């Protein structure tokens, strides 16, 4: 720490994306060189440039310690909080040593580095009913919920609404109506909460929407973008799993059919059979699926690609009609695995956010990201656990008998059970919940 403070100021050149829609001028780049200690943040450099050279530079900020989520920008092309990015690190990743700062993507620019969060981000957050919908009548006393269920939802509660994941969402890039990672992570915050009474309704709503949970393209961009380890894509995938697996929700977007067709084809053949997967995803999960009207329509629509694939012998009729398979004994063994695993009453899941790693992890790959992982380890328990929604289900059962006691999910209660009022705004952090990672650096730099 002392060593960091002793590093003298040095010059850093910023290249800022400037744009004022009201001016009628095109966006342009603007360069300023400031002098600051290398451990200072990019935000401090932008503010210095504004104070010393050009008072018209637009940047939004407040807390300056990675808590308020106001200063989301793109630094050298990657989403980041300006206050949470050290100048030396930014310079290291910059082309030619010039730190490039742009406004976030997927949202309209209001001015320079300020984007319209209301028009996109907040609108989408409101779309998922972002408050608790508890069972009525609300119990007179507090709800008691299993510790693990609360630790689980703290991952999504850690969201600071900075919009970094929205900025980089690749589905939203081509489909602006996609509800998107931040709002769908927020949705899990209630789908995973045992006190909420509308899990099925919430998931049904998001499954029926053509731009809901099945519109995520699984690109991991939001996972990388998030400065708080919220793992939005992971939360979206879990909601798909709960929607299709627990609530058996059917949807018009081929979400459930595609998953069922994929899983069944691998069960039957050991390997995927692409020629059969597509028609079944549209027409239904059986050999007859391809004869359903929806599959026929899709086939017609894809004819330009199919004809060329056949002409080029990329796909031969024989290969399309006959699956490639693993040997019979192995198919039998794979089916036995399916029977055993799918025969369980409750899915077995390992949530590393809750349980952490029980053995020494390999050395962290990137020092800058190293702070993100141990957040999970802090929560302690080393046993494989069922996932939170399952725990949530067990917790709602006793509520139905009007006794708000967590009797169905006994947990070693070394830590007191977190209790929470049904008002989302009043929900306290559970005592053993992982701390949001990485705030210390910004604090130290002050």
């Amino acid at each position, binding site marked *: 720490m002392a060593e960091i403070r002793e590093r003298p100021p040095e010059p850093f050149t910023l290249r800022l994306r400037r744009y004022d829609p009201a001016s009628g001028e095109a966006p342009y780049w603007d360069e300023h060189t400031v002098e600051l200690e290398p451990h200072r943040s990019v935000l401090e450099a932008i503010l210095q440039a504004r104070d010393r050279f050009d008072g018209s530079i637009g940047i939004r900020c407040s807390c300056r310690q990675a808590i308020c989520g106001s200063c989301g920008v793109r630094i050298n092309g990657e989403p980041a909080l300006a206050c949470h990015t050290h100048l030396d690190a930014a310079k290291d990743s910059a082309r030619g040593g010039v730190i490039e700062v742009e406004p976030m993507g997927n949202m309209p620019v209001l001015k320079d580095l300020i984007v319209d969060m209301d028009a996109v981000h907040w609108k989408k957050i409101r779309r998922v009913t972002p408050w608790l919908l508890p069972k009525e009548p609300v119990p007179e006393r507090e709800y008691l919920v299993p510790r693990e269920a609360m630790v689980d939802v703290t991952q999504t509660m850690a969201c600071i609404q900075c919009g970094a994941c929205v900025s980089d969402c690749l589905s939203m890039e081509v489909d602006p109506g996609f509800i998107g990672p931040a709002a769908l992570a927020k949705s899990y915050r209630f789908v995973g909460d045992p006190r909420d009474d509308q899990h099925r309704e919430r998931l049904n709503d998001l499954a029926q929407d053509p731009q809901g949970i099945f519109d995520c393209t699984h690109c991991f961009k939001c996972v990388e973008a998030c400065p708080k380890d919220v793992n939005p894509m992971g939360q979206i995938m879990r909601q*798909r799993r709960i929607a299709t697996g627990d609530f058996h929700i059917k949807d018009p977007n081929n979400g459930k059919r595609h998953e069922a067709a994929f899983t069944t084809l691998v069960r039957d053949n050991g390997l995927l059979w692409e020629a059969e997967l597509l028609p079944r995803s549209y027409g239904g999960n059986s050999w007859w699926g391809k004869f359903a009207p929806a599959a026929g329509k899709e086939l017609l629509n894809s004819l330009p690609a199919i004809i060329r694939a056949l002409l080029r012998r*990329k796909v031969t009729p024989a290969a399309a009609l006959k699956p490639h398979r693993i040997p019979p004994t192995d198919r039998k063994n794979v089916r036995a695995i399916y029977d055993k695993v799918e025969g369980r009453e409750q899915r077995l899941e390992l949530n*590393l956010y809750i349980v952490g790693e029980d053995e020494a992890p390999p050395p962290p*790959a990137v020092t800058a990201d190293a702070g993100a992982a141990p957040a999970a380890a802090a929560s302690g328990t080393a046993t494989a656990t069922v996932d939170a929604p399952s725990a949530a289900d067990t917790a709602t059962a006793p509520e139905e008998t009007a006794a708000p006691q967590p009797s169905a999910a006994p947990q070693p209660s070394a830590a007191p059970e977190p209790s929470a009022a049904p008002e989302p705004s009043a929900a306290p952090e559970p005592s053993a919940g992982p701390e949001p990672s990485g705030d210390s650096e910004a604090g130290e730099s002050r």
Partner: protein
Amino acid sequence: MKVAYWPGCVSRGFTPELHGSMAKVAPLLDIELVELDRGACCGAGVIAEHNQELADTLNARTFALAQQVDGAELMMNICSTCQGAQSECQERLDANAEYRSQVNSNLEGEGLSYEKGLTNKNFLWLLVEEIGLERLRGLVKRPLTNLKVGPFYGCYIVRPRNRLGIDEQHPRDQYLEMLIDALGGTVIKYAGMRKCCGFPIITMNKNASLRQAGRHLGDAADADADCLVTPCPLCHLNLDLQQPLAERAVGRELRMPVLHLPQLVGLALGLEPQELGMSRHVVRPSSVIDWSAAVVAAAA
């Protein structure tokens, strides 16, 4: 070197030219492929989405089969999606002994067991980290001079960085550029090179899926690329097989050939486009074939 070779499903299905070209290229690089022909699909994230333990068990089974291959230095795959899906399962299996033993108990009937710590590398990683670019340069018979190649990674092999072991010592998200350069080609950078091809939502939002593919192909065309190269056969499906439909979705002609990674390597090692299966692509790689013909003519 001997490797336990995981070809994945699609390389044996809709992109047979990938599996074929890998078999052609391996001996030239002194790689002995022991195919894991008993292993099941990695699940491509879809099975994990359905049931995590099921996906983890199927992959633990493949890992256990790989660990049984005598003398194999590591497991190698030729599919970005397999790499990503398997790395995710392996992360859970390696993180928790109790969970691992629970998953292994699903394999007891076959006498299989996964032991923590398997090394599973995509062919791209193996080329750079095990064979080495310097050695590869020495093996090049037909440098890709003047061939402008755009990299297309596929999401699963570049994100998330921690899980995939991407760091300053292993800049795996830049290996394609380094490789194209080592083979003598010209690297074309464009906006979509690390973005999503759109394939995972092709059945759920086809238009959005095709717009993603079309946009990246268009960006590469605008950057004057002769062709793209990808280590992911699923990306290849959306970028090549579906390109006629992607053209419709973005309203422009694209005609961008997309090569599989072993095809590009094979070309530089002196193999002919035909024997690398390039005639089987939906978008005929005319620019690449013309280029190789011109090189041969110049040499003669």
